[in-house]
């Protein structure tokens, strides 16, 4: 019997299911962060598998900045209906009231207020002691050392020097009141694994991942979709229809599209493999500075 008995996807799937079951069993009040993207779709599928034929023993939480693509929200609501899920939607109302938008305050402040702060508000308000996130270690350098169970203080802060060692499949879920654990069941998946799994399992994903004619404007060499009339057009800017798709999804003013004809899953996977730019380059927030993701994480960003 060699270890080639199970494929790598089967092993990754089992590992994720193990992590998800462990959290449901050991925490008082867990929640699954649901960002509507492809990684969230895979994570949700794994959770459904973990408890089949039972239902999910925890709710989903979507932090809505109010600037998500309209198709994302429609997909989210359809998914919740189809799977009979318990969904909590949270928006930072203080941020909305203060008029914080991606245009008024720059991507860094906006992300901090509408995503990081909003997430902390929701976690505190509901008293969640564990929150699943779909982050992968291959996404970015500072993530490579992230634990599967990532400890957060009672202010939701992440201290890279003070993380618990993780051995075997034995996770330490002990927290004091107010403290919490961020759990990353997809830690060992790569982007290619995610796409392969979506293909193999026929997991529904937001149509924005597939190429279509969409109204876009070109800003600083990147295609920004005009998803609604809130996008302020600069002088001389006219939206044009181009065949584009998104490699990653977030707030539409901060998420660049790539020109593409890939309209099926195999075409997307193929395009990914021959891509000349990596996944996160479509996420404008990472360009702020070299160690930006590590800083965001210390502050409580996922």
């Amino acid at each position, binding site marked *: *019997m*060699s*270890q080639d008995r199970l494929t790598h996807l089967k092993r990754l799937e089992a590992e994720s299911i193990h992590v998800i079951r462990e959290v449901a069993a050991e925490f008082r009040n867990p929640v699954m962060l649901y960002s509507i993207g492809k990684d969230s779709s895979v994570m949700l599928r794994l959770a459904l598998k973990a408890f089949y034929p039972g239902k999910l023993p925890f709710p989903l939480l979507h932090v809505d900045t109010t600037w998500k693509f309209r198709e994302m929200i429609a997909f989210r609501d359809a998914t919740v209906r189809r799977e009979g899920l318990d969904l909590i939607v949270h928006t930072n109302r203080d941020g909305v009231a203060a008029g914080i938008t991606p245009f008024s305050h720059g991507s860094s402040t906006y992300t901090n207020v509408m995503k990081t702060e909003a997430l902390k508000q929701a976690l505190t308000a509901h008293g969640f002691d564990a929150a699943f996130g779909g982050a992968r270690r291959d996404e970015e350098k*500072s993530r490579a050392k992230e634990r599967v169970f990532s400890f957060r203080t009672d202010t939701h802060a992440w201290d890279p020097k003070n993380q*618990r060692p993780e051995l075997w499949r034995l996770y330490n879920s002990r927290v004091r009141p107010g403290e919490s654990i961020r759990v990353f069941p997809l830690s060992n998946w790569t982007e290619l694994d995610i796409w392969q799994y979506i293909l193999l399992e026929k997991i529904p994903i937001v149509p924005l991942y597939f190429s279509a004619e969409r109204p876009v404007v070109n800003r600083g060499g990147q295609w920004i979709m005009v998803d609604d009339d809130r996008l302020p057009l600069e002088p001389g800017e006219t939206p044009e229809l181009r065949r584009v798709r998104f490699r990653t999804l977030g707030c539409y003013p901060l998420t660049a599209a790539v020109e593409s004809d890939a309209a099926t899953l195999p075409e997307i996977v193929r395009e990914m493999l*021959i891509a000349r730019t990596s996944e996160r380059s479509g996420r404008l927030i990472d360009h702020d500075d070299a160690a930006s993701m590590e800083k965001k994480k210390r502050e409580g960003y996922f």
Partner: protein
Amino acid sequence: MTVLDPAAATDASTFTDYLGRHERKSLLRFLTCGSVDDGKSTLIGRLLYDSKLLFEDQLLSLEKDSRKHGTVGDDIDLALLVDGLEAEREQGITIDVAYRFFSTDKRKFIVADTPGHEQYTRNMATGASTSNLAVILIDARRGVLTQTRRHSFIVSLVGIRHVVLAVNKIDLVDFSEAVFGEIVAEYRAFAADLGFETLTAIPLSARYGDNVLERSARLPWYAGPTLVEHLEDVIVDDVAADRPFRLPVQWVNRPNLDFRGFSGTIASGIVRRGDAIVVAKSGRTSTVKSIVTFDGELDAASAGEAVTLTLADEIDISRGDVLSAAADRPEVSDQFVAHLIWMADEPLLPGRPYLLKIGARQVTAQVTAIRHKIDVNTGGELPAKSLALNEVGIANLSLSEPVAFDPYAVNRETGAFIVIDRLSNLTVGAGMIDHGLRRAGNIHWQALDVDKRARALAKGQKPAVVWFTGLSGAGKSTIANLVEKKLTALGRHAYILDGDNVRHGLNRDLGFSDADRVENIRRVAETAKLFVDAGLIVLVSFISPFRAERQLARELVEEGEFVEVFVDTPLDVAEARDPKGLYAKARAGEIARFTGISSPYEAPDRPEIHLDTTSAAADLLAEQVVAHLQEIGIVPGADVTI
């Protein structure tokens, strides 16, 4: 060997083939370890770089980073690809386990990049615990070092049986066959006792890529595989599948009255529909009715698969139970011998209660004895009373209840456990079980006819432990003495266990190290428990500086039987009183490890009674204690005639 090459996937049929191949890949987890500057990070950077998974913008940002932090001049510094955290980049060393991923057409690889720095041994054990193979790097110029031996020992300890000896920087010794041969011979001699099933030595240069993916033309004398060829082809036997069936139950799945499933990941073996299984701890048996998954029912499932089993009979099973092959059961015991790797700054203290997590079960455990510790550089045995950070020892453990387990050498899943500190909640140790201790099975409780209640009734009182804690010179003994007098005057039966007195007899063999302090308190707590059983009111007057041990004493008796009295005297006041002249000696350095001066005192968070000795005289404080005992019914009220 074919590298994942997207360019080859440009026409549709090639691409379909490509996807099919990728789906059938297997997974190999390995760790890389070596001394500082052996080039681990550079090697992994090379694997990522050469397997063409480095996308263009990652390369661009790499070139930018190299100019800021790089250590190789104008070349790209491959190590910067993998040294993640900001602080590490500034220090130029890797200080935490990083996980990296790359693929070839045959396998996906998960690489644990573990630090070589001396003080981070715990990270290596962490990386090794999930790996099947280790790549041990050696700098060809420096040969086998102390750290090489240490890393090899830990790799062996954590149960890795396949090792690659990567003799790196071979370019810096002129690609010398002789140098390579000497290093390999020395290593093989040293590693002979480490139980490795395969040991493959490869000369390479991570910086220039020789023998990493591509065969090197500069090493014509070497006929073996390149590193990646070996990693792709090495047969790492999945012994777990050949062992008896074990499934630690994580989750009882009960969506409705008609379905009761037991979910978990199969730790070892194969389970088939109809197999006879046993719940290891209770001995109850049944047969497997179905193996349920989201993707349909299975006829069989094997080690590594996450499944849900339903059984033919309704038997009592909960999270933490281990479903096992009925014909080949695990051991069940509340005492065993294990190898322990200590991972916390605070040392392991025998007698202190810790939490132990094994499979899906969490129990309270104490180390009852450290047999010896192991010098990880030489493998030699050393005597030890405690284990410090990064030390490895062999210890006897005693658990609050029996658990099912297999020896780690037989089963890495059911023989491993982690140790958690009950107050800080940190993971402080990792353990690998050697074997169970038979003693546990043979010492049974002697049931006695006259019980605690009967004995207490005969004395007309409720037994209790009144535990006085505080600094030396705080006034504990003085107040305890007064309380005993008052209780005796009230016709109550009390007894004082005094720290100094007990150290003359029962605890004569103990000193003042943290380990001995813990054992000191453990013995006193057990003695107090026996006295409570005898129906007495026990007044314990001990500095008892650690919360954990006072908590242990509290948990030994029943709820409501433990009254913690914090005799609160500021250090400067106690030091000014100094009734025995001890503070003066401690300040002069004549007494080592003196509480408050050179050893910590952890004040109680929520004592039942808090006495401020600067606010009232001892007699009044003793009255307060008696009044509290009357309030909670330990002593009948003053107005009651007995």
